[in-house]
């Protein structure tokens, strides 16, 4: 199994197009970091404008605000919307790409069971997704920490602001990236499932993105009837729950409780739903593939 996984990873990382995603992430992170390095104050003023009626912020506070932790939060907010496309590029190509190249039929004449083949293919997609996230973490979190330094972190919400001590932030990022890995694996599993039905990779990639876009729009829409009937069942509604790690509890005086998460059960429930989707998508893909006649 390990040998087969090594083969899959070798094939993925030998293709130049694999590195497009890494390049795209590096470019976006770099552009955001440069912009905030040179004009961060305007950005903070813009962020604070909604709250300036209720609170008075000193310049010193604003300067403290613009640190590596906040920059990483901004980047995560921006990139985690685009990442599904990058993940679908590889997962959607997993089976359909092999069918298109004609290598699927040769591979399946080897003494490897179809279930094993699917497990290895999916595991390779997951490793690729993790590699992308680690790359993103290295640039967005550690890169920003180096460029902007660290300090207390402030997250703005519609209801107010969340403030965390600098020593209380890093573990939240570890948790958030871990959650993002599960969220992106859900997209990967969807693209992988669609890949089983197609004989070229464009179809599954476009179909995955269409589903993600439609579901995201539905998740974001403020239509009361959808709140209980549709939204809780859409995986996209749960993909953004990583932000929950940055919402903290406060004591009776309104002081932040270090190491706390405001609504951990909700975050864990969302995580469970995403895992259930992954299992559903992957097991369906295996079930279909085991029965499929290979005609390409």
């Amino acid at each position: 199994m390990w040998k087969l996984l090594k083969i899959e990873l070798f094939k993925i990382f030998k293709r130049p197009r694999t590195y497009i995603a890494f390049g795209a992430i590096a470019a976006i992170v770099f552009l955001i970091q440069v912009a905030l390095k040179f004009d961060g104050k305007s950005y903070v003023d813009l962020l604070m404008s909604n709250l300036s009626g209720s609170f008075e912020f000193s310049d010193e506070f604003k300067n403290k605000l613009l640190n590596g932790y906040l920059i990483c939060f901004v980047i995560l907010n921006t990139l985690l919307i685009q990442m599904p496309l990058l993940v679908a590029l590889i997962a959607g190509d997993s089976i359909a790409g092999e069918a298109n190249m004609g290598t699927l039929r040769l591979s399946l004449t080897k003494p490897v069971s179809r279930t094993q083949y699917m497990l290895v293919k999916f595991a390779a997609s997951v490793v690729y997704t993790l590699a992308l996230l680690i790359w993103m973490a290295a640039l967005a979190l550690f890169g920003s920490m180096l460029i902007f330094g660290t300090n207390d972190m402030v997250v703005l919400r519609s209801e107010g602001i969340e403030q965390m001590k600098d020593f209380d932030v890093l573990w939240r990022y570890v948790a958030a990236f871990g959650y993002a890995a599960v969220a992106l694996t859900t997209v990967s599993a969807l693209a992988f499932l669609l890949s089983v039905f197609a004989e070229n990779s464009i179809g599954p990639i476009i179909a995955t993105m269409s589903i993600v876009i439609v579901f995201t729009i539905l998740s974001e829409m403020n239509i009361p009837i959808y709140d209980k009937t549709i939204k809780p069942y859409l995986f996209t509604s749960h993909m953004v729950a990583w932000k929950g790690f940055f919402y903290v509890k406060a004591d009776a005086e309104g002081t932040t409780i270090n190491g706390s998460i405001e609504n951990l059960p909700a975050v864990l429930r969302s995580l469970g739903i995403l895992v259930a989707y992954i299992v559903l998508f992957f097991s369906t893909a295996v079930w279909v593939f085991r029965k499929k006649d290979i005609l390409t």
Partner: protein
Amino acid sequence: MGSIIRVDHLTKHFRDIKAVENLSFTVEEGQVYGFLGQNGAGKSTTIRMLLTLIQPTSGSIDIFGMDLQRHRKEILRQVGAIIERPDLYKYLTALENLRIFATMSGIKISGKKLMDQLAMVGLEQRAHSKVKTYSQGMKQRLGIATALVHDPKLIILDEPTNGLDPQGIADIRNLILMLSREKNKTLLISSHLLSEIELIADSMLIIDKGKKLVEGRVNDLFDPAETVVELKTTNDAAAFEKLSGSDFREFVQQRRNDCVLLKLHRNRIPEVLKELVRMEVNVISLHSKHSLEDYFLSLTTGQPHVEALKN
């Protein structure tokens, strides 16, 4: 010699299309078994069922005395195959491709042995070139190397000479004969070209519309010396008339616009030529076609070769 492949009442339907119908045949150990049929006759579907790429609608397949469905892995460990085109990873080198399929076949193989494998198909000089730079013939040879990399007992080649030039066809033919004679492999080779199969096969099966037409040893199925001759002269009408009135009248089959067709034993061709010279018929060309082709066409089109040529 035991049987390596035993196919029993194999059937495959794709909804309303009957691709293979009640097909049974046996391939013995050490044989080169020709699997013949026109395009669309059901050869590739049958081969895909032998390799578990397609599930049969009904019937059974035993390979090496084991049921294919229940012992898939054990069987496929000893089988090497090319199905139609030898599609490989074009962005990888020949050596990388070979290593991938060797690993998938469950064997550990050294770099030297991989190079030996490439040398066997004449690709050692291009081992480190990406497959996208290969010609069709080179891809075909590399495909054969991937099929042989784990030293299988049974080799299944589906249309192995498709798209090759005459030299490429000859190379593949020689390789097949070497595998059979020197390495004692059992080979099942499909083709729609009878001329190709008759040069290498011990036994053959001809199918049409998914059904078996005939199976047997090549020498038992036809007289290899029987031949159909296409004779072109400066005046075909006169040649036809003169031959029809000569001692060779029984061999004259038909006069077409551009030639006269004769069917006779190969040994008698010189006598016919002498007679034509004696009758002052100017011969432009004489082209001999094997009677097996005639036999094949008569089976698969329902009319003899000479009849088919008339159309």
